[in-house]
């Protein structure tokens, strides 16, 4: 399978190319949709094969596709090195998991979109699927990239697709603005990322993930000082924060909801925004050597989670609620990564992809049913009309609220458990977050599906067609079962995902081999796999021996589990009470704490703050500088010009009066004097000739006489 790993991004890319080049003009909607979905389906099949393969053989394989930047000599910290980059893909358990998420959820969302976007004009329809396929291709490149540069291609590529898809309805000013905002905020993050890449090259002399991990593993862990590794990690985290919408770069994600709902589901919930988490996981070894940065990450993650959750409580736009929820959940993932539970972060990434995609698609079905209405306050009582949507969305909401045995419970509980082990304060923040999460999620459910008001749409709402509900149902089932791969040992599970991911994350397991695409595995692969598996087993046994399941840890785990379930239930109950039973309570609460309410409603005024400082500052500086350019620099140039012209005028006057006067005087005197000699001019040519001959005669005479 690894031989053909390059086909994974290739198929969506080919689908995008076909739809982009021909579909926009010529294909019908059916053909477009078929091309897009089939390409994703093939990719999904390949990803499943890859996942199975990765499970069987726990080693990383790098696949060489081709030369890119040829080696250029450079002096780095390591001494002489060569800057170069090849098109290399890396397939290991982590990549396999990510590829599965991307292709699986991607395929379902493609399927969903075929119906959701049906009302678009034909050209736009093809354009949409072109972008969507392109996104999947770039996302796969991101997760499969074998070095920083290839990954950066995917990184920027998904940013581009996100830009294009947010601004899909480009004639809407707000959509275009949101797209640009997303891209530029991401670019700010990319600045850090790019500089981080450079720093990594300077430090390690290579940009290959495996090689970087191997090298970083031998650096001392920078516990006390903020050294080179810390700087690299911090810069990389700036990039991750941009892409994954963490403080302070989260502002673009809520605005990104201007895009079509499937886009929000795929890009802004399930896949792209998790790229930041992926980066931290991918470079787990590197980050583990910079504990200070990890601490920063954890704090930022926890704060982001709490802040976003609190904002979500008061939002009235259904998609914005989900957007803030996404930010909050991403914060939880970073919290996990920050406390060192990388596999828990990835686990939550996977489960979150399922239930958040489910929730977004469900909200899409609601919006579809409401003919484009997104305001929660205008909804209500949809339970009757949209039974499938209702059931699936409730499943999603239960999952995110952390109710067992749904997926969200296991992953979130793992995070809370790990955080508790490290830092109680962060644990408190995370717990409050999960309480709030359950609350706002069921507030949303209540607003949408319950309530007495009849929905205020012109025609009665209707359930979405099968192509939309089937993905919903599949995702709901996924939401129920996907958590089972991470059942903790406390509950008698095996925590399969942690073991699966171990080779990618653990420091000592960085074993890879390289091959060229299209060629079979080199001889000896089997032995290598066997060896790797053996080592892994040994390691696992050692881990078990080192951390036995003791009574104390058992008890703590049980208690925490119980607590988090309780928190989720509390939140649900509160939401039920406030918004179903006593709808007037929130209004009164809002009046009572109007300051807080306004603060939350206006998203802590962060957007306004950015606008007032950074955006206005930049534009103001731009205008001022332009004035400087026009007035000062150009003015200097023009002043030179004027000076020269003045000098020229002065010379002109001198010339005219002085020099010209002298010349004229000379001319005048010559003219007057010529009266004396003009007599000689008879005007007869022959007389002149005569003089010539006379001269000749004289000359000859002299010549003769002189002999």
């Amino acid at each position, binding site marked *: 399978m690894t031989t053909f790993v390059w086909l994974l991004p290739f198929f969506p890319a080919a689908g995008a190319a076909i739809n982009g080049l021909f579909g926009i003009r010529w294909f019908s909607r059916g053909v477009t949709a078929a091309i897009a979905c089939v390409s994703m389906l093939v990719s999904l099949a390949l990803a499943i094969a890859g996942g199975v393969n990765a499970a069987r053989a726990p080693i990383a394989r790098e696949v060489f596709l081709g030369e890119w930047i040829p080696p250029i000599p450079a002096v780095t910290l390591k001494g002489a090195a060569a800057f170069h980059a090849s098109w290399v893909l890396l397939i290991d358990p982590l990549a396999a998991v990510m590829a599965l998420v991307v292709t699986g959820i991607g395929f379902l969302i493609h399927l969903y979109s075929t119906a959701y976007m049906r009302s678009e004009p034909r050209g736009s329809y093809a354009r949409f699927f072109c972008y969507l396929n392109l996104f999947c291709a770039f996302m796969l490149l991101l997760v499969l990239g074998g070095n920083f540069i290839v990954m950066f291609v995917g990184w920027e590529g998904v940013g581009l697709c996100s830009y294009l898809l947010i601004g899909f309805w480009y004639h809407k000013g707000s959509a275009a603005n949101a797209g640009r905002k997303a891209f530029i905020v991401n670019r700010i993050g990319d600045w850090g990322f790019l500089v981080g890449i450079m720093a990594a090259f300077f430090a390690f002399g290579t940009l290959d993930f495996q090689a970087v991990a191997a090298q970083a593993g031998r650096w001392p862990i920078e516990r006390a000082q903020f050294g080179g590794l810390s700087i690299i990690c911090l810069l990389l985290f700036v990039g991750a924060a941009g892409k994954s919408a963490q403080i302070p770069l989260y502002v673009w994600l809520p605005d990104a909801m201007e895009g079509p709902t499937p886009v929000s589901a795929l890009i802004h919930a399930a896949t792209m925004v998790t790229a930041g988490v992926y980066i931290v996981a991918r470079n787990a070894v590197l980050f583990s050597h910079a504990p200070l940065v990890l601490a920063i990450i954890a704090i930022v993650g926890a704060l982001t989670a709490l802040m976003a959750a609190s904002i979500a409580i008061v939002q009235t736009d259904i998609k914005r609620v989900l957007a803030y929820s996404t930010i909050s959940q991403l914060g939880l993932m970073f919290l996990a990564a920050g406390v060192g539970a990388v596999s828990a972060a990835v686990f939550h990434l996977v489960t979150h992809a399922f239930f958040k995609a489910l929730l977004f698609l469900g909200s899409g079905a609601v919006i579809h049913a409401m003919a484009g209405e997104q305001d929660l306050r205008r909804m209500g009582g949809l339970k009757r009309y949209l039974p499938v949507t209702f059931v699936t969305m409730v499943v999603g909401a239960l999952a995110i609220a952390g109710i067992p045995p749904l997926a969200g419970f296991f992953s979130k509980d793992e995070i809370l458990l790990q955080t508790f082990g490290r830092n109680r304060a962060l644990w408190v923040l995370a717990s409050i977050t999960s309480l709030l999460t359950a609350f706002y999620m069921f507030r949303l459910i209540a607003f949408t599906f319950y309530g007495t008001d009849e929905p205020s749409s012109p025609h009665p709402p209707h359930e979405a067609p099968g192509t939309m509900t089937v993905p919903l149902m599949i995702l709901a089932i996924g939401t129920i079962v996907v958590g089972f791969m991470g059942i903790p040992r406390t509950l008698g599970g095996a925590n399969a995902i942690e073991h699966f991911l171990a080779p990618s994350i653990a420091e000592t397991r960085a074993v890879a081999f390289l091959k060229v695409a299209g060629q079979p595995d080199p001889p000896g692969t089997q032995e290598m796999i066997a060896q790797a598996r053996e080592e892994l087993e040994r390691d696992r046994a050692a881990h078990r021996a080192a951390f036995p399941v003791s009574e104390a840890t058992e008890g703590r785990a049980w208690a925490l589990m119980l607590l988090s379930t309780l928190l989720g239930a509390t939140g649900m109950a509160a939401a039920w009470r406030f918004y179903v039973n006593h709808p007037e309570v929130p209004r009164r609460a809002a009046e009572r704490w109007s300051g807080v309410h306004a603060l939350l409603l206006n998203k802590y005024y962060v957007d306004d703050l950015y606008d007032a400082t950074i955006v206005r500052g930049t534009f103001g500086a731009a205008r001022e500088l332009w004035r400087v350019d026009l007035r000062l620099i150009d003015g200097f140039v023009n002043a030179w010009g004027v000076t020269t012209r003045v000098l020229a005028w002065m010379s002109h006057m001198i010339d005219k009066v002085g020099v010209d006067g002298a010349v004229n005087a000379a001319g005048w005197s010559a003219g007057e004097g010529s009266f004396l000699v*003009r007599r*000689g*001019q008879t*005007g007869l040519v022959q007389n002149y000739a005569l003089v010539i001959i006379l001269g000749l005669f004289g000359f000859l005479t002299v010549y003769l006489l002189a002999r």
Partner: protein
Amino acid sequence: MHLYPITAYHYLVLAAALFALGATGVMLRRNIIILFMSIELMLNAVNLNLVAFSRLNGHVVGQVFALFIVAVAAAEAVVGLGILLAFYRNKETLNIDEVNLLRG
């Protein structure tokens, strides 16, 4: 120097005579065209001289000079006759004595 055998000097004398003839023509005639032709005669005399000297020195450079003179003569004739035509168009005369605008 004798009448026989013929040496290059004889040709020089011949050229001188031709030159003098041309000069005489320039002095004598008032028709501008004939004046021009007289000048051509003089140029020819020069050419004859050059060729004779070329002969005298046993080198071909003289002929090259003569070629240049031919070219110059062609240019002179063309421009001169052009001017002449333009002049004739204005003044209706070819008499050199009537061309005296430069009289002081």
